[in-house]
C-alpha cells in the first residue's frame, strides 16, 4: 500500500519554538529595491541585504543563500498600470521611482516572518527508502530548491533540494544546506497521511544559519 502525500510548495509557518503562547507569527514589513530581478512569492525564503531590502534566496553557496525571512504576502507594489496594489506575489522587474522606504507609496513592500526560532513546513520531493531512514534525517540539514512560484496563485515554488546527499542534499553542516529538519509531522492518528517513503513528504524545519546579510 502506498500513500499519495498531499503537499503544497513554499515555506509554511507552523509555529514558534520559544514563544508558542498565542501562536501568532512575528511579522515585519520590509521594502524591496526597485526593479527586483526575480519575482517574489508567498512562502519564498528571502535574504535581507545590507541596505535593508530583500532578495529571493538561491540555492546554497550562492550570493543569496542564507534565508532571513519567509514571505507572507505583498502589502504594496506598483502594478504595471501604474496603480499601487496589494497581492500575494511581487512580479519580477517591478520598478518604482523614489526612495526605497515605506514613506514612498509606490515602494514594493513585503510582509515577512523573520526565521529566528520559527518552525516552517516544507515539502521534500524525494522519497526515502524507509521511515527509519527518513527519521535518521532529523537533525540533518538540506538546501532549498528555489523553484519560481506561480504567477497565477502567487504561491511559492520552494521545496527542499532534490539531488543527492552532500553538497546541497542532506548533510551535517549548514554551509550549503541552511534548513535543519526538526520533525516529520505525524498527520492523522496512524501517521499515514504524511509518508516519507513517498514523494513530496513534509518536514518541519528551522533555519540553521540566520542573520547572514550580504
Amino acid at each position, binding site marked *: *500500500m*502506498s*500513500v*499519495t502525500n498531499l503537499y503544497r510548495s*513554499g*515555506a*509554511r*509557518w*507552523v509555529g514558534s519554538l520559544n514563544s508558542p503562547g*498565542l*501562536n*501568532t*507569527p512575528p*511579522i515585519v514589513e520590509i521594502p524591496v529595491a526597485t526593479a527586483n530581478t526575480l519575482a517574489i512569492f*508567498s*512562502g519564498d525564503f528571502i535574504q535581507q541585504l545590507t541596505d535593508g531590502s530583500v532578495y529571493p534566496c538561491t540555492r546554497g553557496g550562492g550570493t543569496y543563500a542564507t534565508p532571513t525571512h*519567509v*514571505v*507572507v*504576502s*505583498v*502589502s504594496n507594489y506598483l502594478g504595471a498600470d501604474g496603480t499601487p*496594489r*496589494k*497581492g*500575494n506575489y511581487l512580479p519580477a522587474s517591478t520598478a518604482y521611482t523614489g526612495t526605497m522606504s515605506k514613506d514612498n507609496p509606490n515602494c514594493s513592500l513585503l*510582509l515577512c*516572518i523573520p526565521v529566528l526560532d520559527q518552525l516552517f*513546513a516544507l515539502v521534500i520531493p524525494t522519497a526515502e527508502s524507509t521511515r527509519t531512514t527518513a527519521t535518521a534525517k532529523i537533525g540533518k540539514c538540506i538546501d532549498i530548491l528555489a523553484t519560481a512560484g506561480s504567477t497565477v496563485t*502567487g504561491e*511559492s515554488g520552494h521545496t527542499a533540494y532534490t539531488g543527492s546527499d552532500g553538497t546541497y542534499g542532506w548533510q551535517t553542516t549548514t554551509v550549503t544546506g541552511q534548513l535543519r529538519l526538526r520533525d516529520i509531522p505525524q498527520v*492523522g*492518528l*496512524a501517521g*499515514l*497521511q504524511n509518508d516519507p517513503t513517498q514523494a513530496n513528504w513534509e518536514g518541519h524545519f528551522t533555519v540553521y544559519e540566520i542573520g547572514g546579510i550580504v
Partner: protein
Amino acid sequence: MATFVTENAIWKGMKKTLSGITTEDLSKDQCCVGKNKICAITTMEDGYQDYMETAGTTFLLEKPTGQAMRTDTIIVGGTKRIMPRTMAKEVPIAEEAMEDCKYKEIIDASKRLQKSAWNTQDYDIASMVLGATTIIQGYDGVALASASHVLPTGQLASNCIGTAAGASTILTIGPSVQALWMARQQAAILPGPNGIPDGKKLKRIVCPEAQVELWKVILGTEKSPGNNYNDLNVVSEYGLSVVPVKWFDMNGANTLWGIITDAEDGFMALQKRAIRGKIWVDNSCEVAHHGVSYRMGMGVPNWRCWINGST
C-alpha cells in the same frame, strides 16, 4: 498565503467583483465512519481502554468409570490498549483580512477546519485498513492482516484469504466469486482464542471506489456470473454490503480489499472528546485564531473482524 491570512493575500476578495467562488465541499461526508461502514465512533469512558482475550477450555476427554475427570484451564492472552490522542490545527487570520474580505466563502475558517476534522477522522479510520499489513493493531502484537496471529495458547492463526497459519507470505486475490467462497470459508474456520474454529460471518466488503461496480455485479447477479450461467450465484445469498472508501483510491490502493466479519471488539474508534472548534484573539497582534481539535483513539483489538482479500 504562507499559513497566515492577511488582507494582501486575499486581495481578490476586497471588492465585490466576483460572481462565483469555488471551494471544497464543506458538508459532513464520511465514507468510513458509521455502523454500516468500517466502524462507528463511540465514546471512550476513561483515560484509556484495554481489551484482552482469554482462551477457554477445549474438547472433553473420556472419563473411565470411577476415575477422576481430567482438568483443563483458562489462559489469559494479550492486551490491546487504546489511548486517545489529540488532533488539532488552527488558522491565524489578521483582523484586517476579516474586515476587508467581502466574501465569506474565502475565509470561512471555522467551517473549513470542521471539515478538516471530519476528513481526518474518516481517513484515520481508513488507515486501519490501509495499514492492515504494516500497523500493529491487535492483542497479539502483529499486523491486522497476518498469517502469524498468535492465540493465547501459542498456536498460530491466519485471517488472510487462502493463506494457512504460519505461512511466510500471504495470498492476495482480486475480486471474484471464488474469492468470496474462500473468504467465507476462512471466516468460518477462524479459530477462537482457544484454537477451536469460532465460525465468524462475513458482513461488509471494504474496497476502493475502483472496485464498487465489480462487487455489485458479483453480489447482485442471480446466476453464477462469468461462467456456468445455470449455476446458482451463492454469494448473492451472503447478504454482504459494499463499503467504498475513496481514501484507498486517493493513495493508489486500487487492489486493496477485505471483508469485515461479525467478530466483536473489531475496528474501534473511541472518542474522548468530540470535535470542538474555538476562536481566540491575540489582541496585541489583532489576529483571530480559529482552531479545531478532537481526542480519539483507535485500534483493532480482535483481528478476527477482518478477512484480508488483497493489499
